[in-house]
């Protein structure tokens, strides 16, 4: 009887492992592609690849997370990209991810999507997209108060706001300090997001 069970477990484990090997390999390959992507086209195709993995897996939020993250990267580098369309797509992907699991990492992607839309025309978009951006981070802090990326992004937002409106280096500094401290103790699980530490450290230097 034990043997049957053993065999059965082994079988399941093996099948799952084969499945997970494919998933892990697919994710690793595309994370490497994301890290080496340079053009909008690169980001778009790696985002599409992640989205395909997500659509095929159906129970993994990480592929969607990376699909969204790749599009935010395109948003940062490409001045001519239609930010409303791009962010609309990002939010659609985040919806799919959150249908599987709600977490702070997805909130960071939503924050960047809204920030990019706000930057199109800060004057008239501050109220709508600026608030959506900070609300995304606040949601994230509720879900995981120890996620360093949330504070790094908060710091970036304050850093970019004119001093007269409550922004500037001085006000951003404590947030970067908090982010850097949290990065030191942050242990990313395999395949999980692990970006922002160097950027946060660099920003903290700029705030000195």
């Amino acid at each position, binding site marked *: 009887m034990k043997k049957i069970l053993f065999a059965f477990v082994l079988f399941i484990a093996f099948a799952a492992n084969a499945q997970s090997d494919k998933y892990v390999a697919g994710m690793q390959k595309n994370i490497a592609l994301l890290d080496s992507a340079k053009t909008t086209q690169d980001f778009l195709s790696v985002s599409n690849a992640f989205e395909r993995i997500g659509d095929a897996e159906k129970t993994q939020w990480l592929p969607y997370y990376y699909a969204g993250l790749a599009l935010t990267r395109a948003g940062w580098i490409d001045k001519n990209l239609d930010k409303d369309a791009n962010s609309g797509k990002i939010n659609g992907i985040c919806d799919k991810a959150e249908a599987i699991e709600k977490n702070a990492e997805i909130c960071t992607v939503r924050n960047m999507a809204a920030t990019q839309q706000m930057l199109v025309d800060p004057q008239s978009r501050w109220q709508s997209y600026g608030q959506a951006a900070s609300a995304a981070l606040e949601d994230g802090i509720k879900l995981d108060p120890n996620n360093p990326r949330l504070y790094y992004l908060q710091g970036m937002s304050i850093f970019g706001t004119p001093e*007269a409106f409550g922004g500037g280096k001085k006000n951003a500094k404590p947030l970067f300090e908090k982010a850097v401290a949290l990065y030191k103790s942050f242990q990313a699980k395999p395949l999980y997001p692990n970006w922002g530490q160097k950027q946060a450290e660099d920003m903290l230097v700029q705030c000195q």
Partner: protein
Amino acid sequence: MIFFKNHLVYNVNYFTFEINLQFVKYFFLLFILSGISSGLTAQVAISGRVKDTKGHPIPGASISLKDTYDGATSDSTGAFHFTTTEKGEHILIVTNVGYNTFEQKINIANEPLKVEASLKEQLSELKAVTITAGSFAAGDSKRGAVLSSIDVATTAGSNADITTALKTLPGAQQIGEQEGLFVRGGAGYEAKQYIDGTLVNNPYYSSVPDIAQRGRFSPFLFKGTVFSTGGYSALYGQALSSVVLLESIDLPEKSEIDATISPLVVGLGTQQLTKEKKSSYGFSYNYTNVGLYFDAVKQTPDYFKTPQFHSGDANFRIKTKSGGIIKYYTTFGYNQLGLRRPDVDSLYLKNAFALTNHNWYNNLSWKEYLSNGWKMNLGAGYSTNTDNIVQQIENAGNQPLYFDSSEYWMQVKNFTLTNRQDLSQIKAVFEKKLGGISYLRFGGEYQYAYNSAVYNDTLHKFTDNFSALFAESDIYITNDLAAKLGMRFENSSVLGKADIAPRVSLAYKTGQDAQISAAYGIFYQKPENTQIFYTPNLGYTKATHYIINYQKMTKDRTLRIEAYYKKYEDLVETVPVSFNYFSYNNNGTGYAQGAELFWRDKKTFKNFDYWISYSYLDTKRQFLNYPQQLMPTFAARHTASIVTKRFFTDIKTGINLTYSYATGRPYYDFLINNSGKYYLSDQGMTKDYNSLGFSAEYVPSIGKKNPRTFVVLFASVTNVLGYNAVYGYNYPYSGNPELKRAIEPPAKRFYFIGCFLSWGVDRTQDAINNNL
């Protein structure tokens, strides 16, 4: 039993063994396979091209084999290529934002596959063309907004008067001697204002001869403003040249108390938002007294009654369950003034004019989302306005003088007049979303108007039951081509006549941010009240508009070029019966044509926002006492404005300048000849008009987190350079051109200084919003 059990165990063991063996084989096989899978498995290439329905390539589209990791992204030519180890029937999915998803069943065998995907563009309100011919949308929420509500308030020279700010847009004339918007050769009364869909009967403070009055409504009441200079929707009628559509704000964001302190005006008000944030109410009171100001800044007229204005308002707003909103706004105003100016017919006599006004305005509206894509807008309004006017000729010692009929031209200048206008109205508009983003709108309105005038002791009055039915459809053929077709039917009981007014406009997108629009429409308007008092069987006046417009708009730059032709028919002509007594007919005609340019740029100079408007106007009309077609006194050939705004964040101060220029306007004197007809006895052209307005706001609360008190200090000066404006001339009864008198503003400049305070709400966002 035991045997059986053993047997079973045995069997099971055997089976397990078998499985284990299988496992090992399988393990082994998989192990080999996974190591060299790419080499061993037959891969099939799938390639193709993604295009839209017009055959243009779509780059960046995602191509995937459903439920697998395999797929690709189309390149800049729409081409894609990938390989797969899958076999058999699969679904190939092609997706791209803004397009409908493409799906195709494919059978993967050993041969490479080619798939041509044709994606249909989704109709999208964001991408679709909008009809812009003739209309300037201003508001924060509206797409295609040209000015935001705060822009209206911070336009130098406007002193937060909506109409004055709209005069910096092309199409409107710089008229200083009368209130109203004079649009494209149209008189002031040819432009009408609507709040939440219903007509405002008395949008301005009551007329004073030769001095333009302000609008009654503050720009902060409204979240959106549309200034249409022609070709407007079939939902609106009874305006020959222009409509201003004002949309009131919804629920306030927070409860607050506001105060205004200035040497001219004090005010206090509150807005209260209920806890559930589903409803709000508010009221405010303002008192304006220019006595102190007139002591400090000398005015040309002698004000024997200091202008004073009391105004109180109240409102409530309730959000409904299905996302609709009910809004009620009421305002009561009382004002008085009296001023004495030299009489034009003598060198020493004076003309004393006194006015008392009562005005009560009510507007109730209900916007509701019904099921099946239906939307409903109901509006109801009641307003009553009474002016008590006394005009009296006085001698040098300010004593009244009376005349007999031998000096009838002086006798008629002494009069009392009580004018009353009441308007009750209801309006219903139903909107149904058709397929895609097309809409059908229809509805009706009913107005009951009572107008009376007691001139000396004679009562004139009429009532009018006016009804209208209208239907309009926005049809999107594609994202790039849209049409708006409308029809309006109107009937007025006092005129005893009906009319049918068709409206058509088209818009075609010529590029990513550029479009061409065209509009055509027929517009009718009832004659003015005084004309109907004397001649009730008049017909509608009529205008036909033809407009073509080009617009290129990016997030921080707008370019608009518009040309138009407008034909006037059935304008009201005055027929003198005796001196100061007239009858009227509909024999007047006219035309207006012109071209206009608008350019707004927030980008070229950092933190600096400016716009430039230019209007060219060629217009002539024969109406009222004009004996032939003449350029009307309210038309200038060239008009231009430059509006600039700059906010200095480090000193938390905004500085705004507006410069307006217009070429001279004609002036005329018409006299009656022996056969009882008007003739042109004298004419001329005023000098050009120049005006430089300045305003500044200091917002010390900016940057403080959640300040308890939000403060704005505001200061403004009109006509900084002290230019002597002449709006026209008044002629004496004799018609002697030597004795004509220039119509000039009551003072060269108008100064305003004030402090606006609010408690309980962080208004910083507004300031950031506007100035970041």
